[in-house]
């Protein structure tokens, strides 16, 4: 489902080149729920950005849903992101002037879905994350946990292959974190969507079926799917 082969990512620091990801090889099967863990600065976000086609590796091969990524032009990656990937961010990243359903519908808009159909699909997705009654509310009228649910609905509305979450519970209290985590787990179980989640929370990570551990830009644990 997801395959990374010898992916490298370097930054050109003034004095030397800084290898943020060093020959990372990783494969994830369809429907897996993986926690990505590791110390701060170990390259977790960089890895997620590359898998999410927001960042381009310096070398290596990337394959998502059986499709090898060959073209890295902004236009090509935008279209692939729209089709294959849903993002959830620590800071929710909801557009403040759009209502909950309009935020959720955003990926559909960039897919050319007409407005009435968008609304219908977005509201169904909002209902799935338990926010049916909040469809017309602005993000400022929602709690943090509700905002993250809206963001999860947005990530999943286009039926992507892969859900990428970078510290999705980082801004939430522990009770809300557990709720959001439970939601992600249930969506993973019901929709069969593959989830990669960066987290600092040991307890949440431990509750995930698979953990991928990074240190200094290398995967030190969990690069291969565990034999079922």
């Amino acid at each position, binding site marked *: 489902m997801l395959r990374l082969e010898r992916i490298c990512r370097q930054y050109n620091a003034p004095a030397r080149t800084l290898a943020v990801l060093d020959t990372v090889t990783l494969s994830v099967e369809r429907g897996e729920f993986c926690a990505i863990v590791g110390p701060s600065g170990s390259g977790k976000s960089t890895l997620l*950005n590359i898998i*999410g086609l*927001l*960042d381009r590796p310096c070398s290596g091969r990337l394959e998502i849903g059986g499709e090898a990524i060959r073209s890295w032009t*902004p*236009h090509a990656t*935008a*279209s692939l*992101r*729209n*089709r294959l990937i849903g*993002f959830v*961010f620590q800071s929710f*990243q909801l*557009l403040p*002037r759009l209502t909950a359903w309009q935020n959720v519908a*955003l*990926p*559909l*808009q*960039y*897919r*050319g*879905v*007409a*407005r009435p*159909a968008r609304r219908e*699909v977005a509201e169904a997705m909002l209902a799935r994350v338990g926010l049916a009654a909040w469809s017309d509310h602005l993000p400022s009228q929602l709690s943090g946990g509700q905002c993250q649910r809206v963001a999860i609905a*947005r990530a999943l509305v*286009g*039926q992507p292959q892969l859900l990428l979450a970078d510290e999705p519970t980082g801004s939430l209290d522990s009770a809300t974190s557990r709720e959001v985590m439970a939601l992600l787990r249930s969506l993973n179980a019901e929709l069969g969507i593959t989830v990669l989640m960066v987290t600092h929370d040991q307890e949440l990570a431990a509750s995930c079926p698979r953990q991928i551990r990074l240190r200094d830009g290398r995967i030190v644990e969990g690069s291969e799917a565990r034999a079922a």
Partner: protein
Amino acid sequence: MTMDTPAAPWLDSHVPDTLAEAWTNLRAQGRRSALALLGILIGTASIIAMLNSGHMAQRESLKLFAKLGIDMLQIQAVPAGDAPVALSRTAIAALPVVDPEVLEVIALATGRATARAGAASADLAIFAPAPALARMVGLVAARGRMLGAAEDCALSVVLGADAARALSGPAAAVGPGSVLLLGGYGFTVVGVLAPVRPETLDPVNYNMAAMIPPGCARRVIPGGGPNALLVRLQPGADSKAAGARISARLTPREGTLTVLDAQSILATMQAQKAVHSRMLIAIGAVSLLVGGVGVMNVMLMSVMERQREIGLRAATGASPGALRLLFLTEAVLLSMAGGIAGSLLGAGISYAIASGSGWDFDLAPWTLALGPVVAGGMGLVFGLYPAISAARLNPIDALRAD
């Protein structure tokens, strides 16, 4: 429901959606948008005021030639000394024959005299025209009748509207049947003219004049021969050249000729107007430029402030084309709002110019459409750079921006 990605990048997001989003964003910007509009507003307003005042001035100047048209010359003989001067009747009659551009010539004898009716008196222009003049100028009797063909030497007079009023005392109104003392002769008033709108080429002010038959004009007009001409030229003829040719043929030994031609008068008026228009165009262009830079500034600030939004849109699949379209649409909408307001202000300024100049107010409708169109073009030009820079943002950096 189709979930396929459309092939054309411009259609990544529907245009109506983009319009709706752009509008919401502009409204959220509020006062800052309004300030940027000011330059666009003043720019389009001054251009529209310029175009419309030009349009109205054109109509006004053409009104000065409405009766006679612009293919017309007026020629007057000016005596060199005290002796009256007259033009040769045979040379006048020959003009349409010898000059192919001359269609028609109407000769008049003109002079001035004091007219008395009872106790009232008035200084009037006296004119004895060839019969065709009344038809050409559109002189008609409001009361009584015009001069008949049989009274070529009669003591009959037709008064202009103002002249009749000036000679009417509180007791006796002057009208058909009244007797008038003109240069020692008693003339009978046979009619009073309907008021005439004065025009540039009129040899006399018909409203304040007395029209007498040409045959025995000598009684009240010294010399009595024709001393003024109206010459109708072939449409499109070069009236300046024709004027020069005709003066060469007709200039009398005892005087000189003055030639007025409608085209030269119009050209002079146009030249004066052009100075005025150039000033308005300069104001308009500078304001539009300032406005355009203002729009660019607002849009660049908007791009700066909305980096996270741009990053998020990119993450959810907005292509660079869709992002450019969004910001370009905002820039164009912003400018067009200024252009619409500018059109209205421009129409208001045109109205003020018209009432200040005593013109009839008249708007050329196409100039109103020009406001939003020109402003929209400015938005397109000055919005391009901000739109391109929005589309070029690196989504990761954009998402991290605060």
